[in-house]
């Protein structure tokens, strides 16, 4: 009888181990926010971390997402504004950030400073002191390849960024339209290879208005991707974007994260860390029991520069 109990217990143990193992080996995307040494920057970093945690698609990732806030107690970040002689372009000590990105083994390293307004996005995002919460996600989404869906407006901007216009992004594209389209099908056929989000445009959504290229605003549901004029250099060159409404890549106030944006972010995350085992459905409380809620760890001081192993064992949690 004891033998039987032993076997049953070990079976339960190994099944638990098996179930756990698929979670333990699950890919985990790591975002670190590194706050300048002042208390205000640290508070901002926690605010930003919470915004990320609760935003689409991060809110659906559970423990496949790790967000950690670090406090630059040694003052090594040294953020400044006016990088590359561009007013309001924030930048911080890149040598330090690169070292930390490697030491901590994180996928995104975001610097946070309360001393300047503005924000930068790219491979090295920097967040300044802005009351608009959406800017956090706007800059973070830039790191996944999403371009601006707002229009640059001044001649200075035109000269700096649109002449020549940059290569296409995953959510903005330069397409020189023909003067006449005989049908929606013809337009689709002509441009399907140019539109990065073409497969996300429903067959019922028209990408022409009359005989001209472009979806008419307000006809199709705002959540449905189409081909709308606008974004980046649209004022000077024919630039197109997937949505007409206030998306997070267009505005930072009352802005929405659209399904395409979310999908692009997930694709890039998976390419970096391997397949995510499960994502909670967008509009359902159901979830994979292996996925627990994302936790924000924080208040951790600078890890040693030469630390190479798991940061959790190396840093001192703040009191």
């Amino acid at each position, binding site marked *: 009888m004891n033998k*039987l109990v032993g*076997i049953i217990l*070990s*079976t339960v143990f*190994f*099944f638990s*181990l*098996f179930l756990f193992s698929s979670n333990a080996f699950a*890919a985990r995307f790591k975002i670190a926010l590194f706050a300048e040494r002042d208390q205000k920057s640290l508070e901002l970093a926690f605010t930003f971390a919470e915004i990320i945690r609760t935003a689409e698609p991060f809110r659906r990732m559970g423990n496949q997402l790790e967000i950690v806030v670090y406090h630059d107690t040694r003052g090594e970040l040294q953020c400044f504004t006016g990088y*590359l002689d*561009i007013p309001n*372009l*924030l930048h911080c000590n*890149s040598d330090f*950030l*690169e*070292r930390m*990105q*490697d030491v901590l*083994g994180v*996928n995104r*390293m975001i610097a946070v400073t309360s001393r300047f*307004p503005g924000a*930068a*996005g*790219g*491979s*090295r995002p920097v967040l300044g002191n802005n009351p*608009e919460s959406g*800017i956090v996600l706007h*800059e973070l989404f830039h*790191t996944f*390849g999403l*371009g*601006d869906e*707002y229009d*640059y*407006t001044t001649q200075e901007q035109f000269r*700096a*960024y649109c002449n020549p216009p*940059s290569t296409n*992004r*995953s959510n903005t594209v330069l397409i020189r339209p023909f003067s006449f389209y005989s049908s929606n099908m013809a337009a689709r056929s002509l441009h399907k290879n140019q539109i990065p989000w073409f497969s996300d445009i429903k067959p019922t959504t028209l990408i022409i208005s009359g005989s001209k290229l472009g979806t008419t605003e307000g006809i199709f549901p705002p959540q449905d991707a189409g081909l709308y004029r606008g974004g*980046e250099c649209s004022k000077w060159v024919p630039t197109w974007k997937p949505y007409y409404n206030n998306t997070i890549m*267009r*505005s*930072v*106030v009352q802005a929405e994260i659209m399904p395409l944006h979310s999908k*692009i972010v997930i*694709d*890039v995350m*998976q*390419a*970096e*860390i*391997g*397949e995510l085992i499960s994502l909670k459905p967008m509009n359902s409380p159901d979830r994979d029991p292996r996925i627990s809620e994302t936790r924000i760890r924080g208040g951790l001081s600078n890890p040693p520069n030469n630390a*190479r*192993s*798991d940061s959790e064992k190396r840093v001192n949690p703040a009191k």
Partner: protein
Amino acid sequence: MNWLMLCVSAILMGSLSTLGNAAPHCPQYVLSTWKLDSLKSTLTLLTPLKVQPGRAQEYCRPLPSSNQDNVELEITSKGKPVFSRNLFVNDVLYFDLPSSESELVGGRVVDPIRIFSTLIPEAALKQPVLEFRLKNLSTQKVLGTGKRDANE
């Protein structure tokens, strides 16, 4: 009773064999961090060559695509291919400033320094000498090269 024991043992062995079989077929990957200096055309592997305990993870399926891959990373050792993979590397630096009307004002510039991370096979790091190359997929232009020699 014997039947019950037999069933439990079979389940136990089944689960054990699943666990046991998973490892040999799934390559171990480690997260690597890279720096491309497009002005100097240098590609630097920031990650140390030695794999840290607990860093390697196994992936049984091919690594997914970002669906916007723009570069190819090639790793060779003494000229022999070790690993290659198409990747997405952000080449643009954006800057934004909310205006008084809460509209965004900003722009973008080509980022001279690009930091990116990708999984690479743990086995690649066991090679004493590694050469790296990052190539633009659309132009086939080499964006940066680099080398790591464990003996140096």
